[in-house]
Every structure is written in structure tokens, then in C-alpha cells.
């Protein structure tokens, strides 16, 4: 009887081991172009803003470096890149997104460029409760070939329960980012944008970016 229980327990242990920490996921992104291209450095272009909030691109651009760098990529300094565009008479992100890929490669020397579009940013005040929502889309384009390597989208809302998405490393980092920001600024949208940014650009998320060469997980996912 007890031996039988032990066998059952051992079997369940095997199942645990086999499934590991993985969560069940459907439809996987086709990473063949991404894997072949092996980008090491990423140029983050100023995001196109489709929200009503003027400050939205600042909130997203300021928080794009950490998820990408922690995923193992070199990130072209976002402030300097924005300045370089400005000095060349380009202050409208939509115009910047239209620049020829070889030109970007020539100036910044990055392997890939990230094109982001902000679809929601800000707080809507309702009778019962207000919601702060930030949503964005991203495309990663190889600057050597012009090929699309990856695309995705993400959103974060103040109405979510925090625990829901705190899985593994990314969850821990998001919690850290939130705690850090809460103590330094009261800008709710900025805080939510940080979470959106991690969901959008952190490697290891379902159908997210692959890890880059500076990560210990490089070519392991």
C-alpha cells in the first residue's frame, strides 16, 4: 500500500520534471529568420505615437533599454540616437520610420532596428474606477538585409492583478521596476509603460524576442 503510494508519487515527480517550469503554450512564432540573422545590437527608433498622450514616446523610449539589454543585446544609446535624428532635421518618428535601412546601418552600425508604435497610453477616468493602460506594438528589422525578424505586441493595465504575470525572471524584474519607480515618481502611466515594455521586449516571453549574445540563455530558447 505504502509502496504503491510511493510509486505514484515517484510517477508524479517524473511528470513534474518532464513538464518542468514550462507553461502550456499554443501557436509558436516562426523564428527561422531571427535565428539565421543572429543580431547582437539593436537601434531603438523613436516610437510612433497613436495615443492622445504627448509624453507617451518618452515613457516608452526611456524604458526600452533595460528589457533589451537584460535579454542580451547591445542597445544603441536611445538619447543619443534621438539627438542624432534631431540634428539631421528628423523629429517626427513617422518620418524616421521611413528612413532607408542601409542609411541607419551606416550611421549607427546596429544589426537590427526596433520600430515601435504606441497604441494606448494614459489614464481614463470612469465613474467607478479609473484605468491606466499602456499598449504598444513592435517590429524588429534586420538592418543588413532589411528582413523582418520578429513582431509582437503587449499591454499592461492598472486593473490587472499583479501576481498574474509574475513568472520567473521577467516577473521578478517587473516587480523590481515597479517598486523602484513608485518610490521616485508618481507618474502612473510611466510605471505601467515599464511593465508593457518588459512584456513587449523581454526575451523569454511567449512569442517574444529571442535572447541575444550577451545573455547566458543565448541560443538556448
Amino acid at each position, binding site marked *: 500500500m*505504502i*509502496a504503491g503510494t510511493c510509486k505514484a508519487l515517484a510517477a508524479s515527480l517524473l511528470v513534474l520534471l518532464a513538464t518542468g517550469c514550462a507553461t502550456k503554450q499554443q501557436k509558436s512564432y516562426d523564428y527561422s529568420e531571427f535565428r539565421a540573422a543572429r543580431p547582437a545590437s539593436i537601434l531603438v527608433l523613436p516610437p510612433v505615437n497613436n495615443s492622445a498622450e504627448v509624453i507617451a514616446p518618452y515613457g516608452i523610449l526611456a*524604458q526600452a533599454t533595460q528589457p533589451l539589454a537584460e535579454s542580451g543585446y547591445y542597445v*544603441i*544609446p536611445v*538619447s*543619443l540616437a534621438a539627438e542624432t535624428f534631431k540634428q539631421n532635421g528628423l523629429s517626427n518618428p513617422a518620418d524616421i520610420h521611413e528612413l532607408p535601412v542601409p542609411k541607419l546601418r551606416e550611421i549607427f552600425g*546596429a544589426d537590427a532596428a526596433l520600430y515601435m508604435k504606441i497604441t494606448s497610453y494614459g489614464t481614463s477616468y470612469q465613474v467607478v474606477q479609473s484605468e491606466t493602460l499602456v499598449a504598444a506594438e513592435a517590429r524588429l528589422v534586420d538592418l543588413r538585409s532589411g528582413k523582418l525578424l520578429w513582431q509582437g505586441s503587449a499591454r499592461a493595465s492598472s486593473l490587472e492583478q499583479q501576481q498574474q504575470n509574475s513568472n520567473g525572471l521577467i516577473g521578478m524584474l517587473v516587480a523590481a521596476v515597479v517598486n523602484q*519607480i513608485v518610490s521616485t515618481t508618481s507618474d502612473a502611466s510611466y510605471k505601467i509603460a515599464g511593465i508593457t515594455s518588459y512584456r513587449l521586449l523581454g526575451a523569454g516571453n511567449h512569442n517574444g524576442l529571442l535572447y541575444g549574445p550577451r*545573455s547566458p540563455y543565448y541560443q538556448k530558447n
Partner: protein
Amino acid sequence: MMNKKLAAGFALGLALTLAGCASQKQKTLYGWGNYQNQLYEHFKTEGNGNEAEIAALEENLQKIRAQGEAVPPGYHAHLGMLYASVGKDDQVIQQLQTEKALFPESTPYMDFLMNNYKKGAAK
């Protein structure tokens, strides 16, 4: 007796399995501190708070180093740009060189910036 051993074996196995999951929570690659918040301030103030930003970033850099953490991509280059805005010319090139040394991936862009800066300074 036998069953106790089995139970002990199971407990050990379970502990290892759970530890396996837990160990995925590992250290970050870089020390960040207030870097991204400072970038946000930089964008919002549109270059009108450079002195305060430099002070905040220099202090943060000390903390990152004291904790033995790596300085994130862009940090030194951003600091270099801020130094340029307040006329600390000697420190501009030094910061861009440091970015390049830490991250060879930045070489083409850092060279582009340094060439432009030297041209501008020579005028």
C-alpha cells in the same frame, strides 16, 4: 525501512525539482539604479536639466560600481552627451571611449559621434 528510504528519496527529488525552478530567478546582467528614470527626465526636460542629470548619474554610477555590477549599455555615452552640453569637453571623448571599450558593438556609432564632436570642437 524500505519505504522510509523511498520517501526520503522522493522528498529529495521534489526539493531538487522545486530548486530547479527557483534557481531560474538569477541576477540581472547590469546594475540599473536610476538610469532609465534619468533618461525619462532627460526627454521631458528637453535638455534643460543637464546639470542635475549629471549629478544624479555620477552618483548612481558610484553605487553601481560599489555593488560590483556591470554598467548598462548607453550609460557612459549618455553621460558623455551631457558633459558636452555643459562644456566638459575632455570628459566627452573619455565617456564615448569607455562605452566603446565596454561594448565593441557600439564602435561604428561611437566613432561617428567622436568624429562629429571633434569637427564641431575644431570650428
